[in-house]
């Protein structure tokens, strides 16, 4: 049995359907619609990336998918079963690290199986495998504050994957890492995905990250959040970082996505969003260059 099979043998990829979901906070005069009549499918075994302007309600959507909050109207289903509470079949990686600082890397990774009383020789084997896979074998006895930002994210990936979730949900997990670390993380992460083909849902504001990772790209509108466009990123895997520059198909999709995002930014800019102004300016410079 090869190492790859170790990770793949138990994979059960789930599919999440989001139908006509709305979420609003406050009531009456103070009511604010964050998500409005939003529908999409996170397809089985694919890496779906959601990209949208910052502050567009993506994190709210994540909390709904995780089951920490319930939608105002509409429904979210995993394999046809409504999502009502957090569970290990949908694990979330948040923007900031949520590694338990009082546990070593190894204890962090084994947290889920221990909490459920499911520590078997197989689990321990998987823990070893994952430690290797994310390059933390020599750091197993270190505490999170001793790890670099990139290592922390990798430890967290491993901690989620050992639970063998049907869907992995990642909320801007590589935000705040420096550019080189980020690229390293893309490689780690996409290699892990390519190996097990679990259903992944990845939220980002970074267009390069989106194009490099995605099978499908959901482009979101500004608040209230809706899906503006769906692009299939049909660039073959395994992908290389160089693809981002050299692959024509990659660039084509990127320009397409950017123009949709630009349109969205223009709309919110005209509604007085300052954040959108930066995007509009950056976009016009980039288009002028190419």
């Amino acid at each position, binding site marked *: 049995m090869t190492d790859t099979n170790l990770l793949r043998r138990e994979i059960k990829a789930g599919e999440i359907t989001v139908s006509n979901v709305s979420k609003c906070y406050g009531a009456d005069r103070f009511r604010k619609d964050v998500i409005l009549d939003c529908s999409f499918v996170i397809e089985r075994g694919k890496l779906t990336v959601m990209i949208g302007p910052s502050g567009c309600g993506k994190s709210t959507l994540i909390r709904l998918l995780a089951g*920490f909050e319930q939608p105002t109207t509409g429904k979210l289903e995993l394999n046809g079963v409504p999502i009502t509470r*957090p*569970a290990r079949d949908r694990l979330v990686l*948040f923007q900031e690290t949520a590694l338990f600082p009082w*546990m070593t890397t190894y204890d962090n990774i084994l947290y889920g199986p221990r*909490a*459920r009383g499911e520590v078997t020789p197989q689990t321990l084997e998987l823990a070893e495998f994952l430690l290797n896979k994310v390059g933390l074998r020599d750091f197993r006895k270190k505490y999170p*504050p001793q790890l670099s930002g990139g290592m922390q994210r990798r430890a967290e990936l491993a901690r989620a994957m050992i639970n063998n979730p049907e869907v992995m949900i990642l909320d801007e997990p590589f935000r705040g890492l420096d550019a080189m670390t980020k690229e390293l993380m893309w490689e780690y992460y996409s290699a892990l995905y390519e190996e097990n083909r679990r259903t992944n849902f990845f939220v980002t504001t970074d267009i390069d990250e989106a194009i490099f990772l995605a099978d499908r790209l959901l482009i979101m509108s500004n608040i209230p959040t809706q899906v503006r466009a769906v692009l299939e990123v049909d660039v073959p895997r395994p992908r290389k970082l160089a693809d981002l520059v050299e692959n024509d198909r990659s660039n084509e999709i990127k320009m397409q996505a950017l123009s949709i995002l630009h349109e969205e930014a223009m709309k919110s800019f005209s509604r007085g969003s300052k954040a959108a102004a930066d995007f509009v300016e950056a976009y016009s410079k980039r288009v002028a260059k190419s």
Partner: protein
Amino acid sequence: MALARKPVFTSALWRGLASIAIFLILWELGSLSKVWIKWDSFEWLRNALTAVGLKPLYLPWIGAVPAPTEVLHAWLKVIHDPGYWQSWYMSLFRVMSGFVAAMIIGIPFGLLLAVSRSAYGIGFPVFEVLRPIPPLAWVPASIIFWPTQELSIAFVTFLGAFYTIVINVVGGARSIDVRYFQAARSMGSSQSDIFWRIILPGTLPSIMVGSAVGMGITWEVVVAAEMISGGGSQSGGTGGGGLGFFIWNSYVGGAYEQIVVGMISIGIAGALSSELLRVIGKRATPWLRLR
């Protein structure tokens, strides 16, 4: 040991020794000043003070305090007195029993207040009303309430540490990041698992801070309680009364050098207990000392 051995004579140590030496020298000089300065030349000041109705003998002057050499002399004598060591033992015993009781009751109580909304609603208002009452204000009431002198002193010391520990535990448990709970719940943690593996270790740093502060208060309280209550008067003499009573007894008996001996003994005892707590704290929270 994986840790490299630290050099003993670091510059920090030298600075510490210099600090103590300078302090002792200034003190000795201050005490000697009563010999150097001829009071006769200050006769006019004395007269002036008497004229406005003050007693000139009671002017505050460092020369009135026994010199460190005299204190050392008294100390060397008292070291052979089992009563002195009995005082150490009694005070330490009272501090430790009060402090340990405060930990045993305070930590679970604080965690309960932090975890349960209804426990907080019922318990916290009373706690908040009792908290501002200084432990020493409890001395008379606790002498009436507890059957023995010993228990009443232990109770007052207990109060000294209890409030600080509880407040820190509640604050610490409440400030645990909600992300840890979300992550734990997502991975299938049960309530008890969350308590033992998230809330308890997450509160440990605050428990340590609360204990360190509480230990300081305990020493303040025990000494005062011993002075007020006569330090378990049934034992009598300097023996068995604790360091607080040792000081008081020296004062009453006119052994002024011994007062300072008692004071310094308390300083040393307090520093030792703080150091002990620091060592335990470091062992209990290994993730905090590593960066």
